[in-house]
């Protein structure tokens, strides 16, 4: 099950349009050509090369950085020095980060909802998320560096280093990483300048230009004292970075985890996904690595989706006699929460739990 993000930005059009002439008493009409194009400036973005995801047996819940988590990567700080020199403006960007669990060992149990880690357990149980920092990192010039633009009149990031680390006390946003993907949107402001040189505020004095930073990390819970191996879990992370004003994209959270009561008084299962926006539901699945079924994806004709009755939401209806729901009434599953994933057409992955009683 793979969802594709439908580009919210306009499809590029490069076309010529003739405006029909209107006849006047004195014939002074004419026509002109117009064209459309996409603004695609060169972006100057710096990212770390590695996301070192480590299980941390010494996680400290009072820490303000990534060390507070049982499992976390380094803070992935995205530095933005993108400037349009012709227009003499800084360029804000949006980074849409996608992460997918691409492989896991047979004895690893991935959870898509958080759980309370057991420090005494040898079971390899792990929950991974993409989390936006509460406060992004800041950067400064390295000691001894005389800041100067590079040959392209851009800040030379080789002259900079982290000043203050990102804060993750309460992440601004967090989405579960699943084997079917996940999406986290990080809005990063434009670089700023204190230079007032007309027409060249960003390209005259490098000491007066400040890059902007956005920060996120892979975080989560894990039974830290299990015998973890380097190839137990592999995660693929890709960036989709575009010149953009803030997009404020959030993955919907289902307020009340769905429950289905089986039996003679059963009613159809209805799941409401809020803040759907323009997206549609593409797939629904349940996940349980500890169970025999591992992953069950509903066939598209096994459910219906209503986008109109509740404005801004998608209401999914699974009939009460659905075979997937019937399967979950079996011993070992009945009454127990299963990870529920709802994939949206724009790449967002809604995660909750489903309990069949």
């Amino acid at each position: 099950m793979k969802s594709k993000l439908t580009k919210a930005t306009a499809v590029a059009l490069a076309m010529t349009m003739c405006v029909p002439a209107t006849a006047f008493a004195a014939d002074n009409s004419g026509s002109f050509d117009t064209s459309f194009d996409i603004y695609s400036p060169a972006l100057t973005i710096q990212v770390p090369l590695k996301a070192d995801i480590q299980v941390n047996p010494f996680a400290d819940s009072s820490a303000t950085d990534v060390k507070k988590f049982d499992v976390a990567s380094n803070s992935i700080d995205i530095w933005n020095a993108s400037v349009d020199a012709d227009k003499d403006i800084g360029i804000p960007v949006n980074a849409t980060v996608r992460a997918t669990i691409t492989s896991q060992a047979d004895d690893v149990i991935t959870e898509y909802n958080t759980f309370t880690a057991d420090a005494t357990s040898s079971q390899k149980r792990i929950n991974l998320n993409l989390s936006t920092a509460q406060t992004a990192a800041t950067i400064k010039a390295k000691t001894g560096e005389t800041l100067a633009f590079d040959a392209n009149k851009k800040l030379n990031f080789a002259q900079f280093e982290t000043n203050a680390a990102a804060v993750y006390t309460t992440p601004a946003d967090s989405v579960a990483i699943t084997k079917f993907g996940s999406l986290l949107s990080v809005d990063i402001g434009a670089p700023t300048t204190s230079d007032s040189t007309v027409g060249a505020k960003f390209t005259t004095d490098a000491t007066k230009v400040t890059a902007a930073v956005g920060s996120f990390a892979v975080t989560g819970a894990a039974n830290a004292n299990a015998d973890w191996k380097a190839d137990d879990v592999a995660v693929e992370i890709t960036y989709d970075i575009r010149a953009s004003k803030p997009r404020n994209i959030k993955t919907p959270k289902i307020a009340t985890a769905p429950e289905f009561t089986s039996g003679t008084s059963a009613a159809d299962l209805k799941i409401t996904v809020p803040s759907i926006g323009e997206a549609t539901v593409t797939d629904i699945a349940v996940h349980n690595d500890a169970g025999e079924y591992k992953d069950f994806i509903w066939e598209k004709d096994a459910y219906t989706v209503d986008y109109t009755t509740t404005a801004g939401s998608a209401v999914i209806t699974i009939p009460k006699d659905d075979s997937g729901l019937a399967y979950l009434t079996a011993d070992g599953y009945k009454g127990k929460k299963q990870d529920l994933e709802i994939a949206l057409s724009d790449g967002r992955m809604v995660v909750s739990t489903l309990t069949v009683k």
Partner: protein
Amino acid sequence: MENTEQNKTKGKKAVIALLLLIIIALGAVIFFLLNKPEEKSERDISEGLVVGGDIDEKASKARFTTDMNMIWTFPSGSAVSSNAHIGNSVSNVYECYFEVYLDDEEQTLLYSSPVLPVGKKIDKLELNQVLPDGSHDALCTYHVLDDEDPDKELGTVSFAVSLMVVKE
């Protein structure tokens, strides 16, 4: 006597036949080795867990700066982009090369660059196939090379790009 001569002749013929077989077999092996289809390189940008503090410090500290635009346009019927801007930023420390894959089920490789020294840009981006008109999602994956061992990669980083094939 005559039998001995006949036996010797038969023996020589057998040896010659055996040698011919060996030569033909060797020829077949050589032909196969020279024409072996190239193995499709797997595009693996996944990262595993770091265990026991076993971090590659050099790679861990490395950062990569883009000097690229994210939307590349191509005239209809052409594999050459009219606006692609991509290279190895002067802010970088290491050489790199990049690959462009169509973001589809097959992960079709569209372009593989030469190794780029720091500060070097690509003059012309020409895909290895002409794409149909329309918008295509692709992934540009940079492979950053270790300056002490050019056969070793420090790591990879991928960016989504849009390929727009339009009529002009």
